[in-house]
């Protein structure tokens, strides 16, 4: 049985359509007009225990709303959610022990308490015994380096410190399912790397993790499953590598030769590839489909024509692929097969 399951999950926000200023507010009192915003639109999602899933999409796609629905914060307009078979509102207390949630945009630490005290309050709310608590903190400390920030007041934390403390706060109770919503937003690179390492540790321990991000570097090397949401609808749900295979077939071989070679010669000896000159002399770019030829074959062919001083192969990042999906360049159906 999947540990997280959503069927036909839909959330419509009703926004008061106020005109601007006082006049608008007064008018609104008499004639209420609303504008419906479908933030999440018939989402079906099923996550197995121990699975790591990346949930990506552009800003406003509905990622945070999905997380709020999956954690029981919002009541869906229609459709339903089950966590471990439980109803998130009806069994709120039980579900709360099993899930951990982090919203990168918002802290759950008490602004008027030192971090250590915020964590201790959470420990008591969840009823974690002191020995387990100390063990967990020590483990978080290894990667997140909490020691220096424990005595700092919530309101005095820098963004990076806050995020590290918030990660610990979301996990003090050892949840089985963790939702991380934009957990690297605004962090500098050093902190980002540390936090990403922490996620991998979490995944390796067998925690079910759903990571929401619009920074694709967060997901490379983190999970195999990729879910892409756009305008509230899931437009892809499948294997990250398969997406790369399917949509990132193109490779670019950059070569540098020891003496000039006519472009025509290169083109005729590499049919099926696209050869262009690069800005600096003696450098060429060869674009090819990795299923039509291998980089090795291309290099071998070129080596018979001239001496190669240097070469390098570029593969597109998943970022490029998803960007193409967003831009409507690639259209996927529910199964991830291009139409």
């Amino acid at each position, binding site marked *: 049985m999947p540990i997280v399951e959503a069927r036909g999950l839909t959330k419509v926000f009703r926004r008061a359509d106020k005109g601007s200023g006082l006049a608008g507010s007064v008018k609104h009192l008499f004639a209420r007009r609303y504008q419906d915003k479908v933030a999440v639109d018939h989402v079906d999602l099923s996550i197995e225990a121990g699975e790591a899933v990346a949930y990506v999409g552009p800003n406003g796609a509905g990622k945070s709303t999905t997380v709020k629905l999956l*954690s029981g914060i919002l009541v869906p307009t229609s459709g339903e959610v089950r966590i471990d078979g439980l109803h998130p509102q009806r069994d709120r207390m039980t579900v709360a022990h099993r899930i951990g949630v982090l919203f990168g945009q918002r802290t759950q630490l008490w602004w008027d308490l030192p971090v250590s005290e915020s964590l201790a309050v959470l420990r008591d709310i969840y009823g974690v015994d002191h020995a387990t608590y100390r063990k967990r903190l020590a483990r978080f400390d290894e990667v997140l380096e909490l020691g220096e920030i424990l005595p700092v007041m919530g309101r005095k934390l820098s963004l990076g410190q806050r995020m590290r403390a918030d990660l610990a706060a979301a996990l003090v109770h050892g949840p089985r399912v963790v939702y991380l919503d934009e957990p690297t937003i605004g962090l500098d690179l050093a902190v980002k790397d540390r936090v990403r390492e922490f996620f991998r540790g979490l995944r390796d321990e067998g925690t079910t993790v759903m990571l929401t991000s619009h920074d694709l570097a967060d997901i490379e090397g983190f999970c195999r499953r990729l879910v892409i949401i756009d305008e509230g609808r899931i437009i892809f749900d499948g294997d990250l590598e398969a997406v790369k295979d399917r949509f990132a077939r193109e490779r670019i071989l950059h070569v540098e030769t020891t003496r000039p070679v006519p472009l025509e010669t290169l083109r005729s000896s590499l049919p099926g590839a696209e050869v262009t000159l690069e800005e600096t002399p003696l450098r060429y770019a060869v674009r090819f489909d990795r299923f039509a030829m291998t980089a090795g074959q291309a290099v071998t062919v070129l080596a018979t024509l001239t001496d190669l001083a240097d070469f390098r192969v570029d593969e597109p990042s998943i970022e490029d692929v998803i960007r193409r999906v967003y831009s409507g360049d690639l259209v996927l159906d529910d199964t991830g097969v291009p139409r």
Partner: protein
Amino acid sequence: MRTIRLYPRLLGAHFRSLLEYEADFLILAAATVLMQVVNIVFLSALFAKVPVINGWTFWSVVTMFGAVALAEGVGSLFFDGMWNLAWQINRGELDYYLVRPYPVVLQSSSAAIGINGLSNIVTGGLMIGAGLAHSAIDWTPWRVALGVLLLISSVVIKVSINLGTNAACFWLSSPSPMFAFAMHQVGDLARFPLSIYPIALKAVLGVVLPFAFISFFPIASLLETGTSRWVGLLTPVIAAYCAGLAAFIFRRGLRRYESAGN
């Protein structure tokens, strides 16, 4: 029960930061005491002219004022976070409350300590004490128990009205507790013996928003003053009703909670 044991822990967490603002605390405490002194002076002036209003003497009205102060004091010392509910809803602060295994309403109400509640409780207690000392009733164990029950019920009613009116914010979507505050102002009318008011106002204070059960009715029963002594015996029932209704309103409101977009 764990739920109850945890409450002082959550509330107490704010205590240390409260002491950082010692000056604020002292000013607030002084202001609260001063307000009660003004009340007493006003009452003595009033009763110097008319010794009895509808059967109520100076000391019985002091007891009533004391009951109001006590109920308000408990409301702000222990449940002041309720007054932040509008803000909490508007800012999406209930998000994290909703994923913790502790009642959302208690997380909300323990989010702040109203330290002026302490001086209200003390002055309220003194006023009740002085009022009772000047009354002619004899203190059988039964009457002591009744007194305690009535005072507890009175506090429950005040806190429930605070909760119910603040929970209206789930529908009003205003970022400030204006509605609850306006209702609180209406409740101030119930400081005086209800019998001086026209029937419509009596109905409001006795039935719609039963502020009269915070002080007028229970104190009338306890001191055997005025004409409607038996009504006060219903105070525990009204308290249970108010608490149930407030919890119901809060729960319904929570289902409407929409968090906040970023």
